[in-house]
C-alpha cells in the first residue's frame, strides 16, 4: 500500500523582521536577495506514515510543530524538499475555521464543512450526527456569537471529525473544551484510527499523545531530535530539554509528575529532583501537616564558591504557593 504521507528532506525558512518584502522577492520565486534575514522553522525533516498510523509530534514552542501541519495542509510550501500527501485530509489547526459570528450554528456547519472539503450533500447526510456530537441542538438557529467558547469549540471539532478524512491533522486545539468533551474527542480520534484514518497529533499534553499515538517525533529548534515509540519519545524530550538547559541557562524542563528543574548557570546540572516523605519514600502526594523533604542531585561542571539552591511550589496555573532559597534561610551549603 502507498504511504499516506511522505516528508522527504523538508526545510522551511521564514523571513523575519518587519520590513516590507521587496518587489524582487514577490516576482522572483523564492530566489531571495541575501540582505534579508531568515529563520529556519524546519530543517531536513523526513518521515513517512502508512494509512491508519498515528504520529504524535511534541517539542517546545517554536520547534516547528505547527509548521509541519501547515506544510501538510498546503497552507504554506517547503523551501526545500518534497511532500506527498495521499488522500483526503481534514485539519484541525483552527476549530471552526470560517465561522461567521453573525450566522447561526446551522449556517456555520455548512460553511465550515465546505471549507473542510465536504460537499453539501455529504454535510446534509451527516448533519444530525454533527449536531448530536457537538450537543448544540437547542442552539442550532442561534448566531454563534452567542455561543460559549466551549460550544463553539465543540461545534468546530464535530464538523472536522465528520469530514470522514483519510488523514486528520490535529493541532493543540482541544485545550478549550471541558474534560468530558476532550475525552469524547480522544475516543473519536481512536475510532477514526481504527477505521484506517492516518493521524498526526501535535500536543503539549503528553498523556493525550500517549493515549492516541503509538509513534512520536520530538522536534527541537526545527530539527528532528528523536523518533520512536511515544513513551520513549516523552522521556527523551525531557532529556533534550535538560541538555538544552545547560546550553541556554533559562529553560524550564518539564518532568513527568510536575517536577521541573531550572538551572541558572552553565556550571551545574540538576540530575534529579525528588520529594520525600518523613520516612524517605519518594512521593508526590502529601497530606496537610506532612513534612516534605526535597532532595536534589546536582552535578557541578565547574567549581562553585557559594551556590544557592531554591525551591518553588506552584499551583497548576503557575501561581506560587510557597518558595524559599538557601540564601534567604541563611543556610550555607558546603563549600565545593
Amino acid at each position, binding site marked *: 500500500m502507498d504511504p499516506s504521507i511522505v516528508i522527504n528532506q523538508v526545510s522551511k525558512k521564514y523571513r523575519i523582521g518587519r520590513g516590507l518584502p521587496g518587489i524582487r522577492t514577490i*516576482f522572483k520565486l523564492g530566489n531571495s536577495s541575501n540582505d534579508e534575514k531568515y529563520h529556519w522553522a524546519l530543517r531536513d525533516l523526513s518521515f513517512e506514515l502508512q494509512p491508519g498510523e498515528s504520529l504524535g509530534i511534541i517539542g517546545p514552542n517554536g520547534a516547528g510543530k505547527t509548521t509541519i501541519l501547515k506544510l501538510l495542509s498546503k497552507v504554506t510550501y517547503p523551501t526545500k524538499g518534497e511532500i506527498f500527501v495521499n488522500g483526503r485530509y481534514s485539519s484541525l489547526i*483552527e476549530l471552526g475555521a470560517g465561522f461567521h459570528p453573525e450566522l447561526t450554528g446551522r449556517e456555520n456547519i455548512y*460553511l465550515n464543512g465546505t471549507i473542510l472539503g465536504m460537499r453539501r450533500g455529504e454535510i446534509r447526510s451527516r448533519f444530525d450526527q454533527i449536531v448530536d456530537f457537538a450537543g448544540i441542538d437547542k442552539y442550532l438557529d442561534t448566531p454563534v456569537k452567542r455561543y460559549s467558547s466551549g460550544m463553539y469549540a465543540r461545534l468546530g471539532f464535530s464538523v472536522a471529525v465528520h469530514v470522514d478524512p483519510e488523514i486528520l491533522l490535529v493541532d493543540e486545539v482541544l485545550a478549550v473544551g471541558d474534560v468530558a468533551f476532550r475525552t469524547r474527542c480522544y475516543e473519536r480520534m481512536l475510532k477514526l484510527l481504527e477505521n484506517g484514518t492516518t493521524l498526526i497529533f501535535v500536543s503539549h499534553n503528553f498523556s493525550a499523545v500517549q493515549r492516541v499515538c503509538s509513534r512520536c517525533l520530538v522536534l527541537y529548534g526545527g530539527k528532528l531530535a528523536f523518533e520512536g515509540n511515544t513513551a520513549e519519545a516523552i522521556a527523551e524530550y525531557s532529556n533534550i530539554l535538560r541538555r538544552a538547559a545547560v546550553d541556554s541557562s533559562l529553560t524550564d524542563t518539564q518532568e513527568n509528575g510536575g517536577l521541573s528543574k531550572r538551572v541558572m548557570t552553565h556550571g551545574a546540572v540538576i540530575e534529579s529532583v525528588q520529594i520525600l516523605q518523613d520516612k524517605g519514600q519518594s512521593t508526590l502526594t502529601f497530606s496537610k501537616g506532612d513534612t516534605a523533604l526535597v532532595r536534589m542531585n546536582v552535578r557541578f561542571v565547574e567549581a562553585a564558591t557559594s551556590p544557592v539552591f531554591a525551591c518553588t511550589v506552584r499551583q497548576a496555573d503557575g501561581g506560587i504557593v510557597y518558595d524559599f532559597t538557601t540564601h534567604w534561610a541563611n543556610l550555607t551549603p558546603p563549600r565545593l
Partner: protein
Amino acid sequence: MQRLTRTFPFGYRDLLVAWTLRIIRARYKQSVLGGLWAIIQPAATVAIFTIIFTLFIPIDTGNIPYILFSYTAMVPWLLFSSSISDMVDSIVINMHLVTKIYFPREIFVVAAMLARLMDFAIAFGILVLLILFNRAPVNPWGWLSLPVLVVIQLSLSLGLGLFGAALNVFYRDIKHVFTLALQLWFYATPIIYPINLVPTHFHKFYFLNPMAGVIESYRSILLDGALPTSNLLLSAVVSMSILVFGYWFFRRVEHLFADVI
C-alpha cells in the same frame, strides 16, 4: 522541485457558493433595511447628480429623463467599483483563514465579486421597471446581448480584483490606490454625462477605458433600443487581457500569501 499530490474528489463549487452566501448573509444581518441598501446607494447618488445636472448645470440627454439616463449607467458602475473594492480586501480580511487552512485562494476573490452580483440584480430589477415605465423602445437582440456586457465587465473587475487582492497582501497601500483610482475612473467614464460631450478627437484615448464602451452599450441597449456599440469589441479585448494578466499574477504569488500576510 516540490510535488504535492493528493486526491481531491470534491470540487470547490459548493465552497464558492457557501462563501458567497456567507458574505451576502453577513452583510445584511442585524440591519433593518437589509437588501434595500442595494437600491438606496445608486438611488441616492443618482438623485444628487439629477439635482445638479437638471437644475444647476442642465445637461441635454435628449428625450430620456436625466434620472433614467444616469441610473442606467450607475447600476453597472456600482457593480464594477464595489466589487473591485471588496475583492482587493478579500484576502487580507480573511488572513486568519489563509494562514490556517488551504483551499484555492481565488475563492475569496471570486466570492467577493459574486456577492455584489446580488446587489446588482436587485438594482437592475428596479432599472427594468423604470425603463418599462418610461416606455423606452425594446430590442430583443439587444436585451439578449446583455449577459455579454455583464461578462465583459466582470472579467475586467475580476482581473483587477485578483491583481489588487494579491498585491494588497504585500503592500496595504494598494487598497487606497484602488479607492483613489476608482474615484477618478468614475469621471473618466460616461456615467453622469453623455458621450457626445466628449470632444471627438479625445475618443481614440477615451475608449481605451474599457468601462466607457461597456456603459455606452448598456445605454444603447436599454435606452435606445439598439445593439451594443462598436466600441464594445475594444472593451472586450482589453478586459480579457487584464483578466489573463490578473490571474497570472495572482497564481504566481499565491504561494507566498500565508508567509507574508
